[in-house]
């Protein structure tokens, strides 16, 4: 069933789409000579490597596990020999162990890879944990944890996020076009297991083809056609943010500091659902990822499916290299992506795009003083006041940060995008969150004494 009413939220910015690779069919990239697989590719506790230098590994073999609740196992994406297990500094400054594997090109599949067997919800979650699936939309929250909300929280709605609101990125869109049946079958499996009463598939209206394809298929099955609804969302950044999407689809508001499960909703990325279906069919854990390779500095923009752990340099090389000297390479979209300092950095589970910017597009204009125009307040989808958080965080005023709810920021970047003074608002809010965390630990330590 197709919902024609255009759903949206308050705030946000109309960013350019630049979906240059929308019609580019996914290319399969060969196996690189070496892969680097960090033990932290999700939100939560890092894994401990279970392989040693010199071991031979096969595709789908577990190479990192953790007994912590919020974590996901990590698998080898290639077959070959482990050449090193050493710490590497990942983007958040944390130093995590990384398994370096020299590939043999045979891509032999490990014996343990076989379709999972499950009869009920609990067994399914147990099996899903083994697949190493994390939210593929970008945040990387372990899916088996997300699907098991704490007791007492009744979840009746599943929202599938296919809005893909960032410029350039088309990896979700290609999934819809190429594997549309997988997505729906994945959704049906989840509905059968968890008994969701409503499933909303949210897609922005700049992807009419995707909306058409999915609503056609959804209408075919009588059993599910009342449950599964495709929603046409207004194209506005950050439409794909969890809380915005929940509001746009259901009208429910997630209170500050709460999770979607508190309002009876679970949000999953369209790729994650499709992966679940594929995993049930083949048993192959999460070892490869489709990434959109684009940006002014890239020669042949494309969608490429790469083994996880492939160095960025190899992916760019596969796309014909660079048209001009790349000044900045982003992992993720231009709004929320993280700049990389080395092309040896690997593609991770939740990487959805690699954007290479040339000198002109990467230029950061000089920061000026705040002119109090209030545009950041206008566009903030979380109804915050970025200008005040910015000021107080630079002064280290923790009490004021608390008052201005700095912790509710989701770092979408709308405020920095519209700021006429080009202030580094998001970065200072990120700093504000760190200051709040530090103050909380200090207070806890004091209380402990």
């Amino acid at each position, binding site marked *: 069933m197709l919902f024609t009413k255009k759903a949206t939220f308050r705030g946000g910015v109309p960013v350019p789409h630049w979906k240059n690779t929308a019609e580019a069919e996914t290319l399969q990239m060969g196996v690189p000579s070496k892969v680097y697989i960090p033990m932290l590719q999700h939100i939560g506790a890092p894994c401990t490597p279970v392989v040693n230098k010199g071991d031979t590994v096969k595709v789908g073999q577990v190479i990192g596990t953790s007994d912590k609740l919020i974590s996901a196992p990590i698998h080898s994406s290639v077959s070959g020999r482990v050449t090193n297990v050493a710490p590497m500094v990942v983007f958040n400054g944390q130093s995590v162990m990384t398994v370096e594997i020299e590939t043999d090109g045979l891509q032999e599949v490990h014996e343990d890879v076989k379709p999972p067997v499950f009869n009920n919800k609990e067994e399914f979650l147990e099996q899903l944990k083994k697949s190493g699936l994390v939210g593929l939309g970008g945040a990387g929250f372990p899916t088996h944890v997300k699907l098991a909300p704490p007791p007492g929280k009744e979840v009746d709605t599943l929202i599938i996020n296919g809005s893909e609101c960032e410029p350039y990125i088309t990896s979700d869109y290609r999934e819809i076009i190429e594997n549309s049946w997988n997505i729906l079958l994945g959704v049906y499996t989840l509905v059968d297991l968890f008994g969701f009463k409503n499933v909303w598939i949210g897609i922005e209206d700049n992807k009419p083809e995707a909306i058409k394809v999915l609503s056609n298929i959804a209408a075919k099955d009588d059993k599910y056609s009342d449950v599964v609804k495709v929603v046409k969302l207004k194209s506005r950044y950050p439409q794909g943010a969890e809380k915005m999407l929940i509001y746009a689809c259901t009208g429910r508001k997630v209170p500050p500091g709460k999770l979607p499960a508190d309002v009876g909703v679970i949000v999953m990325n369209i790729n994650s659902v499709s992966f679940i279906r594929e995993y049930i069919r083949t048993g192959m854990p999460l070892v490869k990822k489709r990434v959109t390779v684009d940006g002014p500095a890239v020669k042949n923009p494309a969608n490429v499916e790469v083994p996880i752990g492939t160095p960025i340099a190899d992916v760019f090389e596969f796309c014909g290299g660079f048209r001009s000297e790349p000044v900045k390479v982003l992992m993720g979209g231009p709004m929320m992506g993280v700049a990389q300092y080395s092309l040896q950095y690997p593609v991770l589970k939740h990487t959805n795009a690699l954007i290479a910017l040339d000198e002109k597009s990467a230029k950061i204009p000089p920061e000026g003083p705040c002119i109090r125009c209030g545009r950041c307040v206008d566009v903030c989808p979380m109804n915050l006041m970025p200008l005040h958080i910015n000021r107080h965080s630079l002064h280290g005023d923790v009490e004021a940060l608390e008052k201005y709810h700095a912790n509710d920021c989701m770092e979408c970047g709308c405020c920095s995008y519209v700021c006429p003074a080009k202030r580094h608002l998001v970065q200072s809010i990120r700093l504000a969150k*760190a200051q709040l965390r530090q103050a909380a630990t200090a207070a806890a330590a004091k209380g402990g004494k």
Partner: protein
Amino acid sequence: MLYEVLIPATIMGGLGILFGTGLAYVSKKFEVKTDERVVQVREVLPGANCGACGQSGCDAFAEAVVSGVCKVNGCPVGGDNVARQIAEIIGVEAEAVEARTARVMCRGDLSVSKVKFEYEGINDCAAAASLYGGPMACSYGCVGLGNCVRVCEFGAITVENGVAKVNEALCTACEKCVAACPKKIIVMVPKSSEYAVNCSSLDRGNIVMKNCKVGCIGCGRCVKVCPVNAITLKNNLAVINPELCTNCGECEKVCPTKAINRHRSQIFANVG
């Protein structure tokens, strides 16, 4: 005409006298007795209101000392001299205070250590350090954006060529910089200690050598030569215990990267 001036002047003057007497009476009647010693102690304190004593400021500390909550040597900024004066006022025996100073355990300035990437963003060490551990190749060392400089009330810290340096003559051991440093590389040591391993890297030796010319590579030579066993090697980093160190200087002679060096500013610090 005369009355127009006289009447209001009399009324106002009368009111003034009335309220004045009233206030004088009330201030005598309800006077809050302050301990004279608190005022005296407050006078000998440095008055920087830095909070290093754990109280909210010098006034609060003076009260706390007199009421016995804080020790007479509780003000690290005032040091031994102030402690003795406070002890005299209160009438107790003062314990000796060892003069301390902050030291930055990193010497990796831009001439000797490598830069990982160009950082564009807000001028704050903590913000820069949250991105891949900061722009310097060594993720343990000084970021060099000066959070410590900004919190120092005494102007004792400067960033020179990308690494923070403490002027020990000006440092009053208030420990604000220790709290402000996101890398936790500023430590408090006695001013009398002359030798320290000026490195905080826990990386293995080969990685340290790649990133920085003056880092501790964890070779352990200093541990072997130290006659008083003041040096321990843990997680690829040697640490000198200033309590045991006799400033003999044997470790500096054998250190291959000169991560151990003598604090020569010490010579001038003693004069001040």
